[in-house]
């Protein structure tokens, strides 16, 4: 069997050079052009060249399929909306657990203050209980670090998705199908807890309700 390594290497170099010189070119269009040119040369091709042509055609098809699949996934939504939203939610979890932990610690410190006024036996029991609570509160540090790692991973995914979108030149918008308006409207109301920066507090809600009176 003939050794195609040198030819493949040379072709790879040429393709890399083309990619560098024409970064904005649509891979599918390039594949079409190459296919058209090579088709006119079929009669002149050797067996290894024909095999290589077949590989290039298959590669073109793989690229076209990948592009179609990425378009169907609406990957631009992942980097533009889903990941930023997920990281905001995770940041909010860290902030809320930190606030709750601080409140617990404050209460424990108050209990420790009371222990000074109890007899030795009860003071010891109370201190033992507050010690357990202090220990348990260290969860906030651990979960905070774990969530930070998740956020960093999400940001790496976001970066990779952005690269993929740029590489394949995926369009921003895909035509959507018909939607059930009633279902869509209710779904828009079901968002779970709001981020603090977007949420109304109880006094805002009370004022809003009062405005209807």
């Amino acid at each position: 069997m003939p050794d195609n390594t040198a030819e493949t290497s040379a072709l790879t170099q040429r393709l890399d050079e083309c990619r560098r010189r024409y970064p904005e070119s649509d891979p599918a269009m390039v594949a079409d052009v190459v296919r058209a040119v090579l088709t006119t040369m079929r009669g002149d091709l050797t067996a290894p060249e024909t095999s290589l042509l077949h590989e290039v055609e298959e590669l073109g098809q793989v690229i076209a399929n990948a592009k179609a699949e990425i378009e169907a996934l609406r990957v631009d939504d992942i980097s533009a909306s889903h990941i930023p939203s997920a990281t905001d939610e995770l940041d909010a979890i860290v902030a809320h657990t930190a606030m709750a932990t601080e409140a617990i610690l404050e209460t424990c410190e108050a209990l420790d203050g009371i222990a000074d006024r109890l007899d030795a036996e009860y003071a010891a029991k109370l201190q033992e209980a507050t010690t357990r609570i202090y220990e348990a509160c260290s969860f906030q540090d651990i979960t905070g670090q774990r969530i930070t790692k998740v956020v960093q991973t999400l940001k790496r995914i976001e970066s990779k998705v952005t690269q993929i979108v740029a590489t394949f030149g995926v369009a921003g918008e895909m035509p959507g199908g018909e939607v059930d308006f009633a279902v869509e409207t209710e779904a828009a109301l079901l968002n779970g807890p709001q981020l603090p920066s977007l949420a109304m507090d109880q006094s805002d809600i009370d004022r809003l309700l009062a405005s209807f009176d």
Partner: protein
Amino acid sequence: MAIDKAMNVLIVDDYKTMLRIIRNLLKQIDFNNVDEATDGAEALAKLRSGSFGLVISDWNMQPMTGLQLLQEVRADARLKSMPFIMVTAESKAENVVAARQAGVSNYIVKPFNAETLKEKIEKVLGHA
């Protein structure tokens, strides 16, 4: 050897909550003179300008990590013998080895309990 619980202890962690937890646990075992820093650089400045008998430090902090702080402490003629306990969530063997090679006095993995903290402090100060 009796431990001087009136000594100044510096606790270093970028999580304020963790600082508060450690401060309270130290208070329960009668260490009441506790100062805080939120990264290695702030801690180093406090160590160089103050008089401390023990450092309890987290590892993963910015801009100066706990390991860098430890290295600075061991390289400082006045501070090089300072008892230094690393309290961190980094629990891989290579972390412990690196800390030991840098001269850590003891190493506690988060989450930890009060008994572990007490035991390590007594061990470190007993040998100081």
